[in-house]
C-alpha cells in the first residue's frame, strides 16, 4: 500500500474505490454478480456466522456462482443472528435472519439462483445518513 499524500489524493482514491468496487464486480461477471455480506460481530460469530460465511465461500464457488462474499459489522438484528445481506444485481438488498446451513443452502439454491424469496427475510427498518449530500 502506498501512502496517500494529500486531500486531493484521498478524493481521487475515494472516487476510484467507489466506482472501482462496482466496476470490479461487474467487469468480472456482468450478468451474475452477487454480493453476500455476513454480519461478523461478536453476536453473529457467537451464533455461528463464521460457519455460514465459510459455507457461502465454499458452496458458491463449488456451485459456480460468481459472487463476492464479504464480512461486515453488526446490522443490529441481534435477535436474529446469524444475519446476512444478499444483493442481486439490479435489485435492492435483502436481509435474511436466523441463517443456519440449511437456510444458507436454500438462499443459494432459491434466492441467488432464481430470485425466489425464502423464509426468514428481515425487513430493514432504518435509514442511513446520506453521506454524499453535504451542507454547503
Amino acid at each position, binding site marked *: 500500500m502506498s501512502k496517500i499524500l494529500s486531500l486531493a489524493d484521498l478524493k481521487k482514491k475515494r472516487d476510484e474505490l467507489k466506482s472501482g468496487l462496482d466496476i470490479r464486480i461487474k467487469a468480472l461477471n456482468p450478468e451474475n454478480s452477487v454480493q453476500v455480506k455476513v454480519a461478523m460481530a*461478536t*453476536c453473529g*460469530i*457467537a*451464533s455461528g456466522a463464521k460457519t455460514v460465511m465459510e459455507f457461502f465461500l465454499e458452496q458458491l464457488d463449488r456451485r459456480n456462482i460468481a459472487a463476492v462474499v464479504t464480512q461486515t459489522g453488526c446490522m443490529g*438484528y*441481534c*435477535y*436474529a*443472528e446469524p444475519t446476512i445481506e444478499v444483493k442481486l444485481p439490479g435489485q435492492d438488498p435483502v436481509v435474511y435472519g436466523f441463517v443456519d446451513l440449511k437456510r444458507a443452502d436454500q438462499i443459494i439454491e432459491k434466492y441467488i439462483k432464481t430470485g425466489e424469496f425464502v423464509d426468514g427475510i428481515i425487513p430493514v427498518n432504518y435509514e442511513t445518513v446520506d453521506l454524499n449530500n453535504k451542507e454547503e
Partner: protein
Amino acid sequence: MSSIKIELRKDDVDFIKGVCASFNNDPQELINVLHSCQEHFGYLPAEIQEVVSEGLNMPVAKIYGVVTFYSFFTMTPKGKNPISICLGTACYVRGAEKVLDEFKKELGIEVGQSTNDNKFSLSSLRCVGACGLAPVVLVGDKTYGRVAPDDVKNILKEYE
C-alpha cells in the same frame, strides 16, 4: 526477617523479564504486562508478580493491589474448560441465574472454583455483548446461546 523465596523456571523468569522489557520496564505499562503474563501462564500467581515487580522496579504490593482490583486478572489457575455464565442484565432477566444454579449443582462447585479433577471452572461475567442470544454461556472460546437450565447437562457432556 525471613525473605520469601520465589521459585520459577529460568525460561519463565526470562519470559516475564522479556515482557517487561518489551514495555520499556515502565511501571505505567503494568496492566499491559499483566495481560501478557496472564495470557501466557493462564493466571498470575505470587511468583509471577514478584518477578514483574523486579522487572518494572515497583513494589509488589502495588502489583498485588492492581491484580486484585481488576476482575479480569486471577491468581488461581482456571480449569481445563473454563465455564463463564453471563450475568449481564439482558441475560439475567432471561433466566441466567437459574442456569448458573444448574451449573453449580451439576459441577458441585461455586463461582470462582474449579472441579477436583480440574476439568471445569466456573465464573460469572457481565455482558459479552451477545444480548440477542441471552442467556449466554461460554465454555472456553465456544459460545452457547439461549441456554435453559435443561441444556446444562448436555453442554457438560460435550466435554466428557
